[in-house]
């Protein structure tokens, strides 16, 4: 595989400028310059990519067309015929979603002494958590503080974040690191125990904790193993929730699951419900490739919205600046921000820097798009995909030979499969759809606007405002997973359940009709449609 002759020509220029660039630091943009760049080049600002919702609690708010279609679709369940009298599973807390947030919620709920059922669409652990490579933020060094972390988060979110949620995020962070360690997570440390911590885009202190570049995988497999160690937590795999069930008091009271292999429906009755179904990168907004796992289709947001939950920041998505642009087989897959954190610069076809490598992700991404689309300084692959160079060999020069292999084993392996040695050759990158900044509006205890319905993780909205910093998603899933799990369990102990009903689904149908909509599609989507059928 490896690079084409044209790309090699460009790499020669990158190599030629490298010794000079080792001494150079690109200027950071001012807040005003950042805003200008975002308005002109960030996909969130492309008007034709979004539309206003016409029904539901957020009617009038804008969201990407692809998401709006699913939010305004019909249910997969016929509320008139579905038999709510036959309950398949009875539990105290139902956790929907088997990623990092769901696992954290299940663990903390179980610790309160309640029965927990965790249902997930694919395998337990098939989640974006597993793919997060770079790290998890926590202000635990003497040079740092939760207040500085707060400022970084809120500035990174362009001052739109909900302050109380940010406070919860940064204040819980050190405790979360300790908790993960107590469960057996292996964070990178010096021999004396000092955590190895790095910068990420938009951080003013080094606070990125890592587990090589398998940080998310390390956290996910540890949480999963812990859940499996606790007999009081039941796990149902390949059983996505296709509709929430409320009771006649308007409280969340369970869900209808679907056995993904047989198509059978399963009714779960629960006293409280935690939604932790993650994001929606697999909806491929504006045709972007994505870093997300196969199941990231926004299912939880859809069913929460139909149950009346208010959403927030659903008009902003995160495009990770460094998705793989070549080779085609891994198009859109994440190249961890840690590569830039370790010192790799971003350069154009001529081998010149054009942006400070650790701007916040949205600004960095917009700068890449500008370099390729406006200035024509991108590298074009045989399939027409533009990209810019991420100069990973610099890391070997800066931090010593062997650093790339040691610090980025997953990245090395990823590219080696296609004949590219990233310790010697740069990677071609371009923005890729990475993260759903918004989602179900959250309180600090993980509660939503629907009684007894909690949420945690990428499904939620408000923590990150309009842009999330690297290392705050693994933090968010654990901080709010724990909070939601604990709160849901405490609530489950006191709740007086009413009669199960799907009345909200009937009401939804009426609202669609009143808005003059007659959608032909059903949602949630569950699986992206990638199959090709000849006829």
């Amino acid at each position: 595989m490896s690079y084409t002759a044209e790309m090699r020509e460009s790499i020669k220029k990158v190599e030629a400028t490298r010794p000079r660039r080792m001494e150079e630091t690109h200027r950071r943009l001012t807040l005003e310059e950042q805003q200008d760049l975002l308005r002109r080049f960030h996909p969130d600002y492309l008007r034709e990519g979004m539309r206003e919702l016409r029904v539901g609690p957020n009617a009038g708010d804008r969201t990407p067309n692809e998401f709006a279609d699913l939010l305004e679709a019909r249910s997969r369940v016929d509320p008139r015929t579905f038999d709510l009298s036959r309950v398949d599973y009875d539990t105290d807390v139902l956790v929907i979603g088997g990623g990092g947030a769901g696992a954290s919620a299940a663990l903390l709920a179980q610790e309160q002494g309640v029965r927990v059922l965790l249902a997930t669409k694919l395998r337990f652990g098939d989640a974006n958590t597993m793919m997060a490579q770079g790290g998890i933020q926590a202000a635990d060094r003497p040079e740092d503080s939760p207040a500085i972390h707060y400022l970084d988060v809120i500035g990174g979110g362009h001052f739109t974040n909900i302050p109380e949620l940010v406070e919860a995020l940064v204040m819980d962070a050190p405790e979360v690191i300790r908790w993960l360690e107590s469960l057996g997570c292996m964070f990178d440390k010096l021999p004396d125990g000092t955590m190895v911590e790095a910068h990420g885009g938009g951080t003013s202190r080094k606070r990125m904790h890592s587990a090589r570049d398998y940080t998310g995988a390390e956290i996910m497999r540890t949480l999963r193993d812990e859940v499996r160690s606790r007999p009081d937590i039941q796990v149902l795999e390949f059983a996505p929730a296709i509709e929430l069930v409320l009771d006649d008091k308007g409280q969340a009271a369970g869900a209808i699951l679907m056995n993904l292999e047989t198509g059978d429906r399963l009714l779960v009755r629960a006293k409280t419900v935690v939604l932790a179904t993650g994001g929606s990168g697999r909806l491929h907004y504006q045709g972007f490739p994505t870093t997300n796992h196969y199941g990231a289709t926004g299912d939880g947001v859809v069913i929460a919205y139909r149950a009346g939950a208010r959403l927030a920041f659903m008009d902003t998505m995160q495009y990770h600046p460094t998705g793989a642009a070549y080779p085609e087989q891994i198009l859109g897959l994440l190249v961890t921000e840690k590569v830039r954190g370790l010192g790799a610069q971003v350069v154009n076809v001529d081998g010149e820097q054009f942006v400070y490598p650790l701007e916040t992700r949205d600004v960095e991404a917009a700068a890449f798009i500008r370099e390729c689309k406006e200035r024509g300084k991108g590298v074009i692959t045989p399939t027409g995909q533009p990209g810019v160079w991420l100069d990973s060999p610099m890391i070997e020069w800066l931090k010593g030979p062997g650093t790339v292999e040691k610090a980025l084993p997953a990245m090395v392996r990823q590219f080696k499969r296609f004949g590219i040695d990233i310790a010697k050759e740069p990677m071609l990158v371009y923005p890729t759809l990475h993260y759903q900044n918004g989602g179900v509006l959250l309180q600090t205890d993980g509660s939503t606007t629907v009684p007894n319905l909690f949420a945690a993780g990428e499904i939620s909205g408000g923590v990150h405002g309009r842009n999330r910093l690297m290392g705050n998603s693994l933090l968010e899933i654990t901080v709010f997973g724990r909070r939601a799990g604990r709160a849901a369990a405490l609530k489950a102990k006191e709740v007086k359940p009413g009669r199960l009903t799907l009345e909200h689904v009937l009401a939804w149908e009426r609202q669609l009709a009143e808005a003059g909509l007659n959608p032909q599609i059903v949602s949630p989507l569950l699986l992206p449609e990638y199959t090709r059928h000849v006829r």
Partner: protein
Amino acid sequence: MTEELVPVFIMGKRYDVPSSLTIMKAMEYAGYQLVRGVGCRGGFCGACATVYRLQGDDTLYFGLACQTVVQPNMYLTQIPFFPAQRAEYDISTLQPRPERLFSLYPELLRCLGCGTCTKACPQELDVKGYMAAAMRGDIARVADLSFDCIMCGLCAARCPVGEAQYNIAILCRRLYGRYLAPRSQHLEDRLAEIRAGQFNQALEELKSLSLDELKARYKARQIEPE
């Protein structure tokens, strides 16, 4: 651009697919909507473990469907799930001692050291090597050697004596992380400061700032040098 099509055999049935596709995309090209055998699509989750042979070659090959490009006359099947022994334990009451490892996984000592697991690992890990370390109770070495494990289960699927190598490995990593890794004093110090309420006032103040004041604070941040 017209792409060259190559024949592949998915569970014995022939499909002609573009030569540049990964096995996973080739299966979708062939018309499969994947439910099992698909996960992160990025080489991290271990859901898409695949076994294949090439025509005229007696070697059995292993890979991840999302990371392996098709080859002409590839005969493949996926092993998305493999039943494997997993010990019951409570990490908080274990001791990081070899004897605990042997009592939780007595079959560990049945390992022949044959190395079939190493040949099957799509991550190219030294599985046999970490099993050897486990047999001599070197938990830290198991943790280190097995760190990149994605728990796909191919090692267990191929083991002639029925080991579940990846479950032994995660136990060792958890024992290492919890008990053997050096403690972080700065983390303990920070937790004590938070418990003492040392940052409450600073957070309250930040929350009360006007947008302009907050922006000014943000701009004035001192950035810690690399």
